[in-house]
């Protein structure tokens, strides 16, 4: 059982979706099936977590031949980094299904199940071609969900997101093929397994080009400023479950990709890129924050806020010291929870008021206190309210930045300030004041509270007691960082 558990986790949703599709399940059965798949996956992930050995490196690996002639293997495994994302995906799916409770369009549910398989596979795969397969597969449901169930210019925006992200993936594919060829050239065999390929060393020029291929894919996915034009339109017109997955998981996968593949394959070259990316990330921090302040559409506003915080995570990653790394890793988890919460809240706002324009909202607090509490809680935890996980993470990254350079530290610290600015201003205009909207609406129902409560609890626990989680991740994180530090020292 334990050696196949990751494959079960990846393929269970897809398998259930196929079974339901073949038998043309009724919408009720479909809902139960989807819910079952998410809960069963959560259970399997919990089991994995229980048996996870914090000192064990890559675990539960399964390594079988897949396409022999091209040297492509099916390799999956989990370590501290993928475990975090795996936990997040499986934790977010059940609340999302509860959110979709009244959704009666079948395609919605099938796409969500396919999406879960796609993102989980991308997180767990350790063969580059397999990773590429899942990386592309997770795009399809997003493409369909934005295009089919989105709002606004959804057809146009879905083409835009797919073209931009595939441009990145294609450049990554080129690098993957070239690395595979280099391996073939040195050993006489084709292989795309990460452990095989990380033994290679390239000359400086090749390495820079190859790393660029990967970085383009990840930069578009995060998105680093300059590669971000798809982000606000796509977030703005996609339905809530898709936008939650995009901001909480898929954007983090860009960071994950740099962490996993970037540092494993070309550690020294990434150091070469570090100043550029740190600069872009700093510009991104400020640029996205300013865009968020001026934005009137809630979805787009939090898209920019998400971009700003992801720039912070990317920054922490490239600062390469223990605080910044720890902070980045922690921020991946807490930001995912908080942004999932806020985007679900925006979805609920839309359900009630049929608009997400800040100027059309107002005075919610006087009529819906529960709604106001949850909305404010998630918004403030995005801003880094002390007591929530985001605060710990941002603080760690800022400390790391100050360790490197005072100026970088100062610019980084502005992110908390600017976030406070746009969040509080937004809260003031939406929740308080007088109502600009004559819609009749109810407070949160019990179902909605149940769906949001786990996110609140997790955010509080990560904020108040980070020490609960650190033992799971710290040993491997320190070891990984140690390797990187040796490389950097070697360069000097």
């Amino acid at each position, binding site marked *: 059982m334990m050696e196949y558990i990751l494959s079960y986790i990846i393929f269970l949703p897809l398998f259930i979706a196929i079974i339901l599709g073949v038998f043309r399940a009724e919408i009720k059965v479909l809902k139960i099936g989807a819910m079952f798949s998410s809960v069963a996956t959560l259970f399997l992930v919990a089991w994995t977590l229980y048996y996870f050995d914090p000192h064990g490196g890559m675990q539960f690996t399964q390594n079988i031949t*897949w*396409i*022999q*002639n*091209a040297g492509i293997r099916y390799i999956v495994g989990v370590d501290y980094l993928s475990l975090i994302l795996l936990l997040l995906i499986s934790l977010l799916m059940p609340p999302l299904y509860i959110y979709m409770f009244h959704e009666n369009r079948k395609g919605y549910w099938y796409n969500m199940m396919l999406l879960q398989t796609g993102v989980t596979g991308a997180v767990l795969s350790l063969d580059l*071609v397999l990773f*590429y*397969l899942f990386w*592309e*597969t997770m795009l399809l449901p997003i*493409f*369909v969900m934005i*295009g*089919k169930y989105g709002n606004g210019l*959804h*057809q146009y925006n*879905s*083409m835009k997101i*797919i*073209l931009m992200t*595939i*441009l990145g993936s*294609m*450049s990554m*594919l*080129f690098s993957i*093929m*070239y690395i*595979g*060829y280099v391996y*073939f050239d040195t050993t006489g065999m084709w292989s795309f397994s990460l452990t095989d390929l990380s033994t290679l060393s390239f000359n400086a020029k090749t390495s820079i080009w190859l790393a660029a291929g990967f970085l383009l894919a990840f930069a578009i996915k995060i998105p680093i400023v300059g590669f971000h034009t798809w982000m606000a339109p796509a977030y703005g017109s996609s339905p809530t479950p898709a936008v939650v997955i995009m901001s909480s998981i898929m954007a983090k996968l860009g960071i994950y990709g740099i962490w996993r593949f970037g540092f494993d394959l070309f550690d020294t070259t990434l150091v070469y890129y570090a100043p550029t990316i740190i600069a872009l990330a700093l510009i991104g921090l400020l640029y996205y924050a300013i865009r968020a302040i001026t934005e009137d559409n809630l979805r787009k506003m939090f898209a920019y806020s998400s971009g700003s915080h992801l720039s912070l995570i990317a920054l922490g990653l490239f600062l390469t010291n223990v605080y910044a790394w720890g902070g980045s890793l922690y921020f991946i988890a807490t930001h995912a929870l908080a942004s999932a919460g806020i985007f679900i809240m925006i979805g609920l706002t839309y359900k009630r008021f049929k608009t997400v324009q800040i100027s059309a909202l107002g005075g919610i607090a006087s009529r819906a206190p529960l709604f106001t509490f949850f909305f404010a809680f998630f918004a403030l935890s995005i801003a880094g309210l002390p007591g929530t996980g985001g605060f710990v993470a941002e603080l760690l990254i800022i400390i790391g930045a100050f360790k490197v350079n005072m100026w970088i530290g100062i610019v980084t610290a502005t992110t908390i300030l600017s976030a406070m600015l746009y969040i509080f201003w937004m809260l003031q205009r939406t929740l308080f004041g007088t109502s600009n909207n004559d819609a009749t609406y109810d407070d949160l129902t019990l179902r909605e509270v149940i769906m949001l409560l786990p996110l609140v609890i997790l955010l509080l626990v990560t904020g108040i007691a980070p020490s609960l989680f650190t033992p799971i991740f710290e040993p491997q994180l320190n070891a990984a960082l140690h390797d990187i530090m040796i490389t950097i020292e070697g360069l000097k």
Partner: protein
Amino acid sequence: MITQLFIALPMTIIVIGALILMLLSHSKRFNLDRLNLIAVFFLAISFALQYSNIGDHSSTFLFPNIFGESFILDDFARIFDLMFTAGASLTLLINHDYFKSRNYFNGEYFALILLSVFGMMILSHAHELVTAFIALEIASLSIYALVGYHKKNRVSPEAMMKYMILGSMTGVFFILGTALIYGAVGSTSLTEISLYVANKEDHDITLLIVGSSFIMITIMFKIGAVPFHSWIMDVYHGAPYPLTMFMASTFKIAIFAIALRLYLVSFAPINAFWSELLQIITIITLLGGSWLAISQTLVKRMLAGSSIVHSGYLLIAMSSLGLGSEVAAPAIMFYLIAYFLSAVGAFGILSFIASQNKRQMTYDDFKGFAQRRPYMALMMSIFMLSLAGFPSTIGFLGKFYIFTSAIESGQILLAGLGILTAFISVYYYFKLIAIMYFYPSDTPQKKLPIDISTIFIAVMALLVIWGGIGTSLIPFIPGADGFIDIAKQTISSLK
């Protein structure tokens, strides 16, 4: 003598079938359905016979005392024969509904298809240039007639004239090349030519190179590489759907049969000579084809334009071959199979829709298609994904092998350009998916009719997926590994 006749049977039975179909087509008792099935029956027999012959790695000549070394019998040719017969049968079966929906089809149509399959088979077996030319013309002449089959239609005869005049014109290049090679070598047999090329230090080979370049022109024309592509859009557009499918998939494979034999065996020592020329042709083919495909509004013309791009990918592998890539030749074979499966499926769905209504299909006609016909739309999406090279389909592996072969032979920029055009192709393939899924339909959902056409389209869709992710778990159904094994076996039997 008898054994010789027996091993020639897979070819002869096709001719016999064609003649029988011509006789039967005037009988009142045989309607189009039956004639179709009779044609498929002969193709299936040929397929089965040829399948049982595969496996002996020896290569012999047919009737050596009469024909000399004109006809070679080796696994390379046999596997190509299998593809032709399979391709023709699939064309006939998938278009089952289309034949019934149009009144201009009759028995000769099937006879002509069989004759062109016969020409292609001879082409793959040809071991002598004049034989190859005759075979090429047998195949082409049948196709000229088939293109213009819809006499009442305005575009169909126009397409035929265009194709015939240009095709005959390039046929002349083949003959001229053959004459020049004869002038240099003193023989048109590939054995003699190979010997002559192998000892190239002893003679001046300029004449041979000029001659073989002329032959290359014919080949480039037939696969639609860009300076010679002007016929493709109109001919694919004007021809009836079954024939467009047949040309895009099966006939293109036949051209590569002779191209690979010439390029891999006879001209192997000198094929580096063409690599620069091929690179230029490849670049303009990829870019020009992409341009043509992007700018279309009719889906059929988009597929025609994209077939030029796919020829471009195959040409990447051809020039890698010249630069000494190991994986290029199997990559070409695999890509041919991959393109064959996806294109047959895509054209099959178009012809199925065309059999229901009689309009030209623009992108806009697909609005709400997913709502009207969810299964058809799903299958169409699978074929589009495969043509675009999306992973988990066979088209991805095809491109993967082609691009790795280009990288292996040091053509980094060409591989990069290939990736770029693959990216461009995402636009025009995904546009169709987007239009099918993202717009509501005003007509209610129709039931999927289960008949021969739809079943075979579904089989194609499953093969496209299975060829991309399948392992060798299920016997007899080739998965991702099985197809490339076939390709490798084909190429290895050639050497």
